[in-house]
């Protein structure tokens, strides 16, 4: 099999796109690549609209290579990738909503992010006024005897983000779940267009609050790639420290929350304490509990001092003291295991097909972790393992998190021990010509892709952010089938997809 570079060589190479290549292709080649993705030759990393064009990011997993192909669509149409490869479906529906680009042969032409409430159609493309009164949304049919539907949301019973779930059940057993998302669409990509780079990175950090660090990192790295700027080593390491603290806080929270959804409140209480300790340490070190706006283009906006270093070391010691007992508690409580083992099983083949990232993929045999596969600094200089399991159930997704907590604690120690001295930020100056850049970073729930084009004056012309949830949400629909309604919260929590990161 030829590599991604050969493939892109068949198109017309686009200049000033970094660090990975981008090539213009024709419709025939676009379709051929779509078919190759469906056969498993490449992993679909993303698909997004642009003015008069559509882009597709590809990953060659074994080689750790990334590339982008672009199809110009002067007539506003392009051959649907989803027709060959279902994971592209919602991405294409979103591109149609935002840019008015029509995917020919799209298996599901219903709008996705556009609920008919914006008062405008195709807000990022050929804008056209529209009624803001809302459109009816036909859900997919489930037919058979004794089926009943349970509509849930967008406002849920707990403190979670809004989205609609339509369950079809036979007695207790679910036969179909259909998600409807887009409720928290804020038009972030629209707000970024024309914004200054600093502001755009601040917006990126508000795409999914639980991944503030990862998003700011992705957007900053994409811009730095475009402008060929290298942030100082100390900043690179501090960014990783923040990213690992963010991962720890979320994993502690999630392990507790999954157990809580199985009515095991003790784990929730103890994990909540550990999570709070991480956030307090982050606050003490960097001045914000979620470390928001601490990653900026060109570096970081906060340093770690002596007191901060002590704070971090104390945190690691505390977590090492208390977490193992919680892991034993999780593993040794039969009533809890009864709920998590064998529940919501995601088959490895499906995880691979969807290129599922994060704990969702790694609990189902897909070993991808952007920190390892793409080895962006400083992870190329740090020692860590990428835990992988095959079972694919709720239990496996909990275990991946547990193992990753251990890895992150070690990473935090290594970073604090090896933190280089020096400057925190370099100046970011416009290139006086349009530039494009992209980055893929590992957030706690999986890989975040950021792609942007900077105008000659350094402002953002177009920025696209793709959350890991895009490829995880559809899999939640798949794993639910055959489970009982009462296990949905457990499955859902074990995935913990982002609504805001997906809807942006």
């Amino acid at each position: 099999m030829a590599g991604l570079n050969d493939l892109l060589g068949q198109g017309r190479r686009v200049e000033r796109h970094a660090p990975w290549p981008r090539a213009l292709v024709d419709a025939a080649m676009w379709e051929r690549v779509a078919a190759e993705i469906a056969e498993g030759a490449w992993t679909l990393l993303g698909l997004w609209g642009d003015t008069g064009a559509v882009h597709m990011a590809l990953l060659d997993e074994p080689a750790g290579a990334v590339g982008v192909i672009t199809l110009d669509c002067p007539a506003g149409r392009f051959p649907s990738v989803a027709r060959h490869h279902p994971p592209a479906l919602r991405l294409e529906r979103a591109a149609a909503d935002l840019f008015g680009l029509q995917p020919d042969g799209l298996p599901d032409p219903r709008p996705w992010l556009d609920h008919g409430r914006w008062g405008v159609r195709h807000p990022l493309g050929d804008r056209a006024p529209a009624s803001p009164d809302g459109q009816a949304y036909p859900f997919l049919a489930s037919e058979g005897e004794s089926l009943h539907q349970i509509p849930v949301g967008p406002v849920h019973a707990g403190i979670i983000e809004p989205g609609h779930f339509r369950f079809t059940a036979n007695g207790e057993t679910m036969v179909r779940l259909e998600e409807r998302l887009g409720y928290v669409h804020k038009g972030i990509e629209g707000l970024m267009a024309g914004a200054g780079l600093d502001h755009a990175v601040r917006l990126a950090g508000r795409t999914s609050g639980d991944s503030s660090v990862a998003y700011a990192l992705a957007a900053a790295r994409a811009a730095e790639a475009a402008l060929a700027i290298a942030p100082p080593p100390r900043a690179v390491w501090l960014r990783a420290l923040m990213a690992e603290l963010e991962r720890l806080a979320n994993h502690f929270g999630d392990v507790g929350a999954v157990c809580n959804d199985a009515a095991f409140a003790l784990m929730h209480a103890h994990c909540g304490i550990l999570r709070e300790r991480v956030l307090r340490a982050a606050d003490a070190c960097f001045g914000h509990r979620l470390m928001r706006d601490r990653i900026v283009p060109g570096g970081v906006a906060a340093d770690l001092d002596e007191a901060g270093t002590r704070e971090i070391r104390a945190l690691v010691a505390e977590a090492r003291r208390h977490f193992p007992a919680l892991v034993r508690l999780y593993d040794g409580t039969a009533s809890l295991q009864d709920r998590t083992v064998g529940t919501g099983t995601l088959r490895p083949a499906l995880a691979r097909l969807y290129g599922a990232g994060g704990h969702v993929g790694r609990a189902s045999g897909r070993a991808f972790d952007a920190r390892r596969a793409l080895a962006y600094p400083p992870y190329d200089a740090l020692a860590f393992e990428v835990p992988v399991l095959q079972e694919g159930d709720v239990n496996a997704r909990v275990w991946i998190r547990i193992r990753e907590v251990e890895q992150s604690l070690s990473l935090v120690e290594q970073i604090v021990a090896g933190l280089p001295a020096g400057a925190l930020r370099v100046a970011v100056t416009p290139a006086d010509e349009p530039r494009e850049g992209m980055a893929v970073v590992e957030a706690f729930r999986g890989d975040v892709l950021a792609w942007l084009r900077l105008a000659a004056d350094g402002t953002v012309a177009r920025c696209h952010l793709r959350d890991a949830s895009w490829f995880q949400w559809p899999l939640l629909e798949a794993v639910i089938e055959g489970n009982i309604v009462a296990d949905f919260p457990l499955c859902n929590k074990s995935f913990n997809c982002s609504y805001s990161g997906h809807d942006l």
Partner: protein
Amino acid sequence: MSMLLLEGLLRLPLTERAPAPGEAALAELAAGVGRTARRRLGRSLSIREIDAGSCNGCELEIHALGNAFYDLERFGLRFVASPRHADVLLVTGPVTANMREALERTWRATPDPKWVVALGDCARDGGCFRDSYAVVGGVAAVVPVDLHIPGCPPRPIAILEGLLALLEPPAGGSRQPG
């Protein structure tokens, strides 16, 4: 498990001292019109949280209120699953166009008297999402708001200070039973 429970009994509690009700929150409430309502709601409040478009950062800090350090329930404040059981709607996010109707309907489903608390900078005026085609604005653009708690996201202690102000009897007034 017994070891963990035993440790929990022997260790000093992590729960921290209650903050005083926030000054700004008290002032905003005093200036509002909810005096009578406040008397009737008394010292225990049921809160229904609504994410009307947030980035989920505000939700994370609301969640934190339940942990051992803040222990929200000791104040008689608790989160409920249905707006029909709620005295307070705690709303986050810029209100997106796609969530506007859901927010209105949740508000209508909440019995009077009720309070609306707008949590976070987005909930005040749409924050950094204000100028988007997809955003209506702050919470007050859709339903009447009694109290704003600023921050991006507000720290749990700031949320607590704001919520505790709801429990204070209005200056000069006395609390009446239910």
